[in-house]
């Protein structure tokens, strides 16, 4: 480059030939010009492909390995796909942990916890926006601060509370401490504030009380926002690990992530990875399916605050 000897001249056209060619050829040929194709490949598809491989390959590896027999796990020449596929690993998982019970626990905790949390979020957000009381903003501030407290901070005292209430190794003991919802309240409050006032004024003239305004107006027009809150809550409840880990030690009361953690400590041989991958599939794939179907809501909920 000659930039060191001559000052750059941004107004001068450095590639007149190329420019002339572009001008003369019709629009669509440009898209298929070798230069453009190479450009798209190198700066578009190639990096995306690398990123996708890094993201997707571990998950493909997980699914594939979960169907591999032991000799294909401990081999020195691993193949991407199982040569002699078997469901043996899943059977072993079921033998080591009471799989059906644990799955049932996870489903109950996730569904009951999510339903209550979403209901509480809806009613709390409605109250904060539409029921005028002095100090409502202060209460909202208190909820915002609660949003910031990580579960690790409240873990120890909550453990003592739930233990004192007799909630160790019970499903309600797993569900109860997480029910107070700051995230959903926050998200729905923002949403309710954006609803047009006229919507509610007409109902008020008809003599609608708060219950009717909430369930006949606010909820129906907010279904996308409520779906977002619900899905994010479901994902979090299903994946929740720290609290169920602390409050359960009986295998019949564990949720799936806790049981898998126990499976890991039992199956610590190299040959056990097929079993562990089967366990990982059981906890990962349901969320992967939900995410694939409803990613729009989940992404918008999880990136809320960033995207105004």
């Amino acid at each position, binding site marked *: 480059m000659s930039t060191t000897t001559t000052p750059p001249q941004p107004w001068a056209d450095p590639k007149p030939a190329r420019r002339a060619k572009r001008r003369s050829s019709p629009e669509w040929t440009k898209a298929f010009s070798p230069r453009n194709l190479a450009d798209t490949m190198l700066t578009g598809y190639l990096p995306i492909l690398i990123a996708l491989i890094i993201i997707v390959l571990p998950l493909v590896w997980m699914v594939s390995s979960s169907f591999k027999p032991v000799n294909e796990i401990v081999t020195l020449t691993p193949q991407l796909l199982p040569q002699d596929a078997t469901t043996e690993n899943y059977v072993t998982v079921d033998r080591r942990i009471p799989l059906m019970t644990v799955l049932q626990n996870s489903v109950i905790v996730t569904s009951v916890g999510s339903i209550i949390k979403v209901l509480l979020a809806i009613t709390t957000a409605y109250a904060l926006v539409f029921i005028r009381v002095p100090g409502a903003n202060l209460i909202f501030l208190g909820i915002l601060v609660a949003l910031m407290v990580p579960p690790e901070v409240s873990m120890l005292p909550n453990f003592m509370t739930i233990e004192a209430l007799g909630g160790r190794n019970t499903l309600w003991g797993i569900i109860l401490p997480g029910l107070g919802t700051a995230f959903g309240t926050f998200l729905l409050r923002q949403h309710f504030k954006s609803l047009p006032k006229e919507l509610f004024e007409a109902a008020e003239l008809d003599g609608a009380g708060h219950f009717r305004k909430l369930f006949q107006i606010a909820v129906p027009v907010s279904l996308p926002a409520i779906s977002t809150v619900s899905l994010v809550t479901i994902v979090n409840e299903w994946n929740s690990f720290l609290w169920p880990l602390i409050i359960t030690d009986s295998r019949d009361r564990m949720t799936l992530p806790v049981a898998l953690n126990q499976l*890991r400590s039992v199956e610590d041989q190299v040959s056990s990875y097929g079993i562990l991958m089967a366990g990982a599939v059981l906890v990962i794939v349901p969320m992967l399916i939900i995410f694939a179907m409803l990613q729009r809501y989940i992404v918008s909920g999880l990136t809320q605050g960033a995207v105004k």
Partner: protein
Amino acid sequence: MTTTESRPAHVVQDRPEASAPPDDAQLAAARKKAHRRKNSKNWSLFLLFAGPNILLILAFIYYPLAMNMYFSSLDWRLGAPRADPVGLANYERFFTSPSGLEVWRVTGIFTAGAVLGSMILGLLIALVLNKKIPGRTFARTAVFSPYVLSGVGVALVWMFIFDPQRGALMFILDRFGIEAPQWFLDPDANLLMVIIVYVWKNLGYCAVVFLAGLQSIPKDLLESATIDRAGPVRRFFSIVLPLLTPTVFFLLVTNIIFSMTNAFDILRVMTPTGNGTNTIIFEIYLQSFGQFNRAGYSAAIAVVLFFTLFIITAVQLRFVERKVHYQ
């Protein structure tokens, strides 16, 4: 029409001043009374709607916060009947003892590695996804997906990949003639390992937020820069990056907070007793529910974590406020 019948009585009662034109004093008194009645009625409705949630938050978030502050002043083992008050000794220990300082060091490295790693990779992916190429919606979904997956499951998958005997990574590094570090044994290798897994799980979040930031940059600005012969690198540093500053700052703060609070599953599953991976959240758990049962000390660390997060959030709120003012 049944609206007149179903209309609650309070609608009329709320506005006594509308029915008759009394004198000023009467009017003021009536208004006050009505106001008070409306207030108390509103309060009971408010508590009916928001009360349960507020109660739960008080009982399981605020009460534990307060209790932790009390516990943190005790020399107390979980399950022990006796606890001796020790003042600030637990805090002193966390800030001065070698094991306490080690937690700060590990937390610092983990946070820096996790935040920088996921932000830089996230930005690179976002820049690519910002091009109009077919299949980018699918790529965006795929890249984001690890963020919603169970940390326990993800940790299990990566344990297999990192395994020093039969892990996929060992075979790959072998192919390039690189000797793999002693994963699971060497504390430094462990820390690097959990950072890599955390970044893998988290970078999609950064990519999607960056992508939204990139798409809010006005197209005409970039076009006019292109007409002025600014190359892609110049365009990135002179236009894209400055306009992306709010996004960068937002991600920086949220990522610092997330990396300090969200990584527990990965740490606990991949390194059960925390060999070189004792970040602050993991240490809170290990001290009270690990082998030591040092509940008082654990509570002190939890209090420190809370105030650290509080300060970070307060700084962010201040910044956001200023940004709004100057715009």
